[in-house]
């Protein structure tokens, strides 16, 4: 799931400082699961902002509303009668949700209260670890299920760099070398020949905005006339 972390309190406070009536919008999706932007976290942040502005004797009203997901317009519709009553909104969703919220209410400033960190796993309660950078060219099938993009400091695709030091990365001896792990994993599953297969240069598709059409839906989104939506198609992965 997408993992997020609340921004530093002072940064959030500075963003909303110029407004007197703010709605803090939580998200019941991924950021709830990583305890960053669910209903509970929305209430905590609101209490902190209220107390902090009160100390400065600044009039400030902040209310809370948690929608089930901010990345879905149908679920954002709940806010249609609520949002216009506020000068600004804080979004406690990931970057995608925050943008979708801003898109739905173009006349109201929307500020992010969350830093979207990565796509990751729940290691333990409260501990999350990156596993995927959504690069758009997954090679896990060739690397024994270990991702060289997220695990290698240089995101190398074809073996380790010269800095590998036995089991660790040159960045720090506490960081395991991804390619060392890949080698042993492949050996263990009898696919060591994969390591000799040269991967094509990475296209870094994630440097443009991601749009993709799920298999079976191609016809539905095909351009109706030649060149009709070519600009959009250029970006489709």
């Amino acid at each position: 799931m997408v993992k997020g972390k609340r921004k530093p309190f002072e940064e959030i406070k500075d963003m909303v400082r110029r407004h007197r009536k703010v709605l803090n919008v939580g998200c019941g999706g991924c950021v709830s699961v990583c305890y960053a932007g669910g209903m509970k976290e929305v209430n905590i942040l609101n209490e902190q902002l209220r107390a902090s502005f009160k100390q400065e004797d600044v009039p400030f009203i902040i209310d809370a509303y948690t929608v089930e997901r901010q990345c879905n317009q149908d679920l954002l519709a709940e806010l249609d009668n609520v949002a216009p009553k506020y000068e600004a909104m804080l979004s406690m969703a990931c970057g995608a949700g925050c943008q979708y919220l801003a898109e739905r209410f173009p006349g109201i400033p929307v500020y992010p209260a969350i830093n979207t960190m990565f796509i990751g796993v729940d290691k333990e309660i409260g501990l999350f670890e990156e596993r995927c950078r959504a690069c758009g060219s997954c090679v896990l099938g060739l690397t024994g299920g270990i991702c060289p993009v997220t695990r290698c400091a240089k995101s190398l695709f074809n073996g380790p760099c010269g800095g590998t030091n036995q089991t660790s990365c040159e960045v720090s001896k506490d960081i395991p070398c991804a390619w060392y792990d890949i080698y042993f994993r492949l050996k263990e599953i009898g696919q060591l020949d994969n390591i000799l297969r040269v991967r094509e240069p990475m296209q870094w598709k994630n440097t443009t905005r991601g749009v993709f059409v799920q298999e079976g839906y191609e016809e539905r989104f095909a351009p109706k006339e030649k060149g009709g939506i070519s600009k959009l198609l250029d970006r489709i992965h």
Partner: protein
Amino acid sequence: MDAVSLVEENSIRKMLDQKKNMEFFLSVCVGCGMCADSCFLYVNNNKDPSYMPSYKAVHSLGKMYRKKGRVSRRELEEMKDLIWDKCVLCTRCYCPVGISIPSMISWARSICRSQGVFREYDQTDELSK
């Protein structure tokens, strides 16, 4: 939150009244079960009927309408399993008569939230006992 503390029935009723279309949706559901196969959770849980989208809507929001908002906190807590744990709101459930099941589950969650009942992901089963 304390499972026996009172809920604000009036505010639940107000929220139910805001979405009269949902009460209508519930009344036209014939229980054909076609929504079931479009739910990946139902398919992946040995077709357990409690994962059927219609079941989840009828036994959460439907129950609130049937009881005219007079539900106890314990009942809301019991709904959590259906509307949070058994539904990820992927919004992919299909209804041949066009009933929007996800919007009903989403509204049931909003009503629960308004009463302080919601899924807390840092609470494991052991901790919440």
